[in-house]
């Protein structure tokens, strides 16, 4: 019954039904089914960009994108299309843009996991012992790095809480790659001398907080 409707008409129907709490699965299903093929094409290109991926991923990503389109996309599309008509001229283009982001986010998230050695013990047994030991060592280092990062961000959270001005300067200078005190001063509306001072104070407090956290963390001596 929806076949004769255009995308825009179907989309309007979904939005209308959703607003009045009517079931909208029918028109939405037809709509995303029409967009399935271009969506999979976009996914395949993102997979190629990351050099990984499988058809099974594509199914999952398409479903995620539909979910996201439903959760946030419908309202977002209305906002974006009203504020910036050129950005996403049609619901379909907007949906494909969501597909693109869902795929990129997925492969960014799984970058480390996919690069990790096989977890299947049978596969692992086929590796030469030296390779296995190397993989174990790499895994251990990755875990240590992750833990160190976690403690660093916990220390930074404490800095934000206890010395917010210093934390803002540190955030800008280091985390946001500004690395220029004149620019920091401009953005924070402070003097250059103050920028130096805040970053320096942040460094000292961060080290002290980090060391406190490390000594408090399990496995460390009190």
């Amino acid at each position: 019954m929806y076949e004769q409707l255009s995308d825009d008409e179907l989309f309007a129907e979904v939005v209308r039904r959703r607003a009045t709490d009517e079931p909208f699965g029918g028109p939405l299903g037809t709509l995303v089914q029409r967009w399935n093929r271009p969506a999979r094409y976009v996914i395949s290109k993102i997979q190629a960009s990351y050099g990984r991926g499988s058809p099974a991923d594509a199914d999952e990503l398409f479903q995620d994108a539909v979910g996201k389109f439903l959760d946030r996309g419908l309202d977002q599309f209305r906002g974006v299309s009203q504020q910036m008509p050129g950005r996403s001229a049609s619901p379909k283009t907007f949906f494909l843009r969501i597909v693109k982001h869902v795929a990129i986010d997925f492969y960014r998230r799984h970058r480390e996991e996919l690069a990790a050695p096989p977890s299947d013990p049978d596969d692992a047994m086929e590796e030469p012992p030296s390779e296995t030991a190397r993989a174990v060592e790499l895994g251990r280092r990755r875990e240590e790095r992750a833990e160190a990062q976690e403690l660093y961000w916990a220390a930074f959270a404490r800095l934000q809480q206890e010395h917010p001005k210093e934390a803002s300067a540190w955030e800008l200078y280091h985390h946001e790659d500004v690395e220029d005190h004149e620019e920091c001063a401009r953005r924070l509306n402070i003097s250059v001398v103050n920028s130096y001072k805040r970053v320096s104070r942040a460094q000292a407090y961060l080290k002290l907080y980090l060391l406190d956290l490390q000594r408090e963390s399990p496995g460390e001596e009190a």
Partner: protein
Amino acid sequence: MNTAAMSRYTARRQQLTAGSSSPGVVLEVAGDLLRRSRQVGTEGVEDALRGLGRREVETWLQAQKPQALQPVLLRAAEEAVEVVLDGGEEAEMWRLSAMEGLAARDRAASAVVALVAWEALHGPLDGEAARNLERFVEGLGKLDSALRPRARWFIPLNPQRRQERDLLEPAEQDKAWWFSARAGCDDLVATWTGGAQSSTPHLQGCADCRADIADAAPVDSPPRRHLTEDDLWRFDMGLMSEDERSRVDAHTARCGECAQAVLALGEGDDAIEDALEMEEGDAGLSPAARTSRAPVSQRPLAARHPEHREVLEERREFRVVLVRERQRVRLLVQPLAGRTVTAAVFLSPGRPSLKPSNGPEGLSFDLTTASSTGARSAHLSVQAGNETMEKDFAF
């Protein structure tokens, strides 16, 4: 000789004989002198303790809350650090206030020593009073377990802490961590704001300082804030402010992972355009496909620069990126992990390399002229540390 500190304790002795001193003050002063007996003597201590009644001691013990010292010591720690970070006229004020915090902990230790001496004179406390004494000592122990590992915070007070430590009886010195722990680690302070480059004989020889420097190293090279999912979306949709876009540019120039994500955004846009064109080109165009296809002029424009980037090679030390802009082609060799990279691009054998320009993104070779004269490939040579790469590439 630490005359100022000594005269302070000598003056405290007068409180023992004043008669009007509270039981707590008598216990603290008596303990202060007992713990420093060789330096300041114990004159008047025994009489003062003999004059302290059992009821008075029991009432005093009942009111003790050693955990109340925790915020006092934590504030003293912050004040101690301010002595070096502030460094101005207020440094002395911070120093005095921080030392007062340490003195509060020290007075509690003195009270415990005095109570032991009091029991030797009057017989042991019993019942509720004995349990209160046990709780008091146990509470101080817990406080020390929690705060002793943070003794580094008090290093800026080391000259004063050493004076206090040296007045104590040898057996008391190690117990009084608030005066003695890390009391020789003055050199560590310079590494808090200056990195670990300022190595001194102490820093090289002190296991605690070496561990601190190693464990605090992540702060010397802090992790960058990667682009989040929301950042990428807002970047793509053109919702970022100019400062935010500058941040993205600065970050992606150094972070391969996020640069790849931004690159994928562009490739995704190309894919969306291709997908829409393919649908449009299909013989059996559905009404939906027709109506959803936006006019070319209204196609979504990514917020990023109008350029296309292709990563030709990514090694641990460097990345090679071919950048195509509307009327320009250039090859970027981006150093990674802070490495110095040298590179050369040869359009044909025997001819000199193209001259690179050094920019925020790395070495840039402009291939526009070569491209306009019909050249389509070149040879790239890169050296970074021990790693070298020779590669032919098309552009």
